[in-house]
């Protein structure tokens, strides 16, 4: 197939482009869509932490002590807290998408309500898990 060359003034370069993200007024549903993608990408990287923990636990006591030391440190706790929030935010965002996939929740009040519930629910679930974790400790 021949290569299409984009020249200034050619038909292709004069085609109208759809406006990009920054031209729109930010809305909650738009921000939640972006947050869903960012939390997904963060969880992608976060799997390294799960792999590290599982491999350490399956190796020996000193490898486990290293990963436990990191996870109990302030930085480790912050990373795990962020991971927990990303997990719950993405989890609830996924439910929101599944509701949309079944054809419900697109109308004005519902989509705003779903976005708010995802945002608040993610925070509440994260807090609940960490409270339980501290009570067990």
């Amino acid at each position, binding site marked *: 197939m021949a290569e299409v060359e984009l020249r200034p003034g050619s038909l292709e370069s004069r085609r109208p482009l759809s406006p990009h993200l920054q031209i729109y007024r930010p809305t909650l549903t738009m921000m939640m869509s972006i947050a869903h*993608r960012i939390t*997904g*990408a963060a*969880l*992608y990287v976060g*799997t*390294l932490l*799960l*792999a590290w923990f*599982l*491999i350490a*636990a*399956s190796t020996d*006591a000193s490898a*486990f*002590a290293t990963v*436990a030391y990191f996870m109990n440190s302030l930085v480790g706790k912050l990373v795990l807290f962020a991971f*927990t929030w990303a*997990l719950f935010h993405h*989890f609830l965002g*996924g*439910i929101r*998408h*599944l509701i949309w*996939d079944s054809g419900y929740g697109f109308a004005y009040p519902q989509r705003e309500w779903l976005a708010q519930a995802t945002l608040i629910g993610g925070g509440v679930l994260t807090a609940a*898990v960490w409270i*339980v*974790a501290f009570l*067990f*400790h």
Partner: protein
Amino acid sequence: MANDPASTRTAASRVRFLGAAKSGTADAWRMRITSIALLPLTIAFVWIVLSLVGKDYSAARAELGRPVPAILLLLFILSGVYHMKIGMQSIIDDYVHSPHLKDLSLIANLFFSVAVGLACIYAVLKLSFV
């Protein structure tokens, strides 16, 4: 055209080879399936992690080596890495436009997802059987 009731084109023919990845809707469907699987499995995962809090090395090993937590973890890892592989692929399809960089990114995404998944599965199986 697409909404013409007299059209004899099937719905599938309108989406096949379209989209940013030119691969139709298979991945979109698999994304839904893995996300449905991950609803209960994520809750199970959080439950298992919470059960490990405050446990020392041998207690954590014993917990992870029990059949039900191990099987739930394996299911979580399998559906999780499949889900995240498709997710990162759509991010690459959307934002990486240079053809060479795009192919390299897609290959790196596949290798990373498979490697992380296999490492986790290896560790869980070792905890159960060794």
